[in-house]
């Protein structure tokens, strides 16, 4: 099946007073219909930026400086605003992190739903309202027929996130970009929202890019996962492989940092140091200053995504050419 979304070598830059920052550099991946791609990484790694670039809503002065984004085989990164607008909502839906602020407080949720649907679909007011109620029911809002005329502040956080999801889905897009949809929610509510997203994606065969820094959510929801580090993809592959046997030293360290629930450990593995600022990304592999397996080449040359068997990792350890110099091939922690 041809992928619904293809991202090729995406590069996003921010011109600032102290020179141009490269927020994303050479990001490439694709998502097939009905597939859930998880994107994880630490804060500032460029996860949201990737999402924003795909829906064409990079905050100025950020701009796409290179690469391509293709939706169903058509380039969309260079579309004029008006054409891109018709794609947003209709072909690509988006869900943001904070349900408390993503809804316009001055309009009823029904109005916002109807407005969205009528923007993209030829619906009469009555039909649209019917559908709005239907969508609210679908995302599990009890007494939807009455709640459709409520204002956002009359809903709790979890309920609001459901409304946001219904808004993202109501024009039946083929792809959903969900940027940390559960981070702002309580643990118990989080589970509800994830379950909902999963069900909807499966039922509607919608592809989904799920951005989060919660590995648990990814493990449970995603089919494949991309680990990002300093604006680049460090590793990408099937979720089971990444979680169980990450190949890139960073993803491996990340997994090891997660405190286990089932046992107490004396010392969490962790990774020393912290992610570099965009203005000071080291030459070569961005991870090299923190990497336990660093060798000369890492400091000079930037690694491409390399096949490691089950996943693809941007690490020279997996380049047959550098095998000789490499320290012993790392074992999964």
């Amino acid at each position, binding site marked *: 099946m041809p992928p619904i979304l293809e991202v090729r070598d995406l590069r996003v830059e921010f011109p600032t007073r102290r020179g141009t920052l490269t927020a994303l550099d050479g990001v490439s991946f694709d998502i097939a219909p009905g597939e859930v791609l998880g994107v994880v990484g630490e804060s500032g790694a460029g996860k949201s930026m990737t999402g924003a670039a795909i829906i064409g809503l990079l905050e100025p002065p950020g701009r796409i400086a290179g690469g391509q984004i293709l939706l169903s085989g058509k380039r969309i990164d260079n579309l004029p605003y008006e054409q891109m607008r018709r794609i947003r909502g209709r072909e690509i839906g988006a869900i943001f992190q904070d349900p408390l602020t993503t809804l316009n407080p001055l309009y009823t949720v029904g109005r916002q739903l109807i407005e969205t649907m009528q923007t993209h679909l030829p619906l009469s007011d009555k039909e649209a309202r019917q559908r709005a109620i239907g969508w609210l029911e679908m995302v599990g809002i009890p007494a939807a027929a009455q709640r459709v005329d409520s204002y956002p502040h009359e809903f709790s956080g979890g309920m609001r996130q459901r409304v946001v999801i219904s808004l993202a889905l109501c024009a039946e897009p083929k792809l959903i970009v969900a940027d940390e949809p559960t981070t702002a929610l309580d643990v118990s509510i989080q*589970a509800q929202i994830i379950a909902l997203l999963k069900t909807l994606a499966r039922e509607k065969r919608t592809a989904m890019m799920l951005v989060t820094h919660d590995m648990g*959510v990814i*493990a449970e929801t995603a089919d494949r996962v991309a680990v990002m580090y300093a604006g680049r993809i460090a590793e990408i592959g099937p979720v089971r492989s990444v979680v169980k046997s990450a190949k890139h030293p960073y993803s491996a360290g990340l997994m090891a940092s997660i405190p286990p629930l089932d046992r107490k450990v*004396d010392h969490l593995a962790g990774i020393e140091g912290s992610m570099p600022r965009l203005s000071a990304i080291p030459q070569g592999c961005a991870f090299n200053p923190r990497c336990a397996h660093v060798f000369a080449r890492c400091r000079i040359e930037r690694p491409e995504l390399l096949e490691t068997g089950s996943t693809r990792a941007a690490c020279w350890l997996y380049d047959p050419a550098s095998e000789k110099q490499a320290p012993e091939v790392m074992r999964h922690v």
Partner: protein
Amino acid sequence: MSETPVLVAEDLARYFDVSRPLLQRLLSREGRRTLKAVDGVSFEIPKGTTLSLVGESGCGKSTVARLVVGLYRPTRGRVLFEGIELEKARADAETRRRMQMIFQDPYASLNPRWRVQDIVAEPIRAFGMAEGAAALRERVGHLLTQVGLSPLDGEKFPHEFSGGQRQRISIARALSSNPDFLVCDEPTSALDVSVQAQILNLMKDLQQRLGLTYLFISHNLAVVRQISDRIGVMYLGRLVELAPAETLFTAPRHPYTRALMEAIPDLEMTGRQRIPVGGEVPSPISPPSGCPFHPRCPLADARCKAAMPALLAPMTQGDTVVACHAVEERRDPPPAPAGADQRIGTTAIAL
């Protein structure tokens, strides 16, 4: 334990008045409205151990923390610091010196206009613990080194540091007065996992080296597990279960504790469908009657709706106390939940 616990909370309660202004209240004929942020919480923390409190947002964890360090006065009940009433204890600088707090938000917990060395030195100055500028500088340098920073960093301002480094500065400040007791209110929840691991390691390390006592607050069960000796689960301002860490994870008793464990995403792709807790967290202004958890509880019956359960020790486990009618009446499923033993090798949690 024969030794006096470092901290004892007895029937601690704190209500907030969230009424509307008098005039409007009179006109719309509504009474005062109180928010019972914490309502009758009791626990003790023996020296050198860690008690953790977990629970969802708004359940009163931070309020307990603030009560314990004396930022709030309790509405009811009292706090004893080494057997002394907190108010009295805090009146004495020497005792005050011995309790410190670490906060959640590494961005708000450091005064952005102060240099790091001044931030760290503030308690030292306040308690007159260093004679002369040189001694002060040396001590600050030492503290910074202790938390894994360079003494040279003292010259900088907080905004020049990453979140994790700021949290270290926060810890350095807390340690600067040589405290015995640290209250940590979600010290890692604003941090990335890799950094969180560093901070947790650091805290554990310090506890071992300095014999600190922690009250540790988090909403993250996995984090709590790594650091606690005992864990209290809070729901709507009350403790619903208080148990040794191991016991809580191997044999959670309260339906809410179980639900929480259920809700944690599973890093092990078992294909098992999680069963999320239904419903929403009720508002603490108008909590449900009886057991506050009953609207969401699969085991709820008429009694749960009517009467508030007391925190009791169930027959089967020695050190655990649970506030649940179902547990008391043994209506609950068998203690060892399916999740715990099946999920061997599971790492999980919200980062």
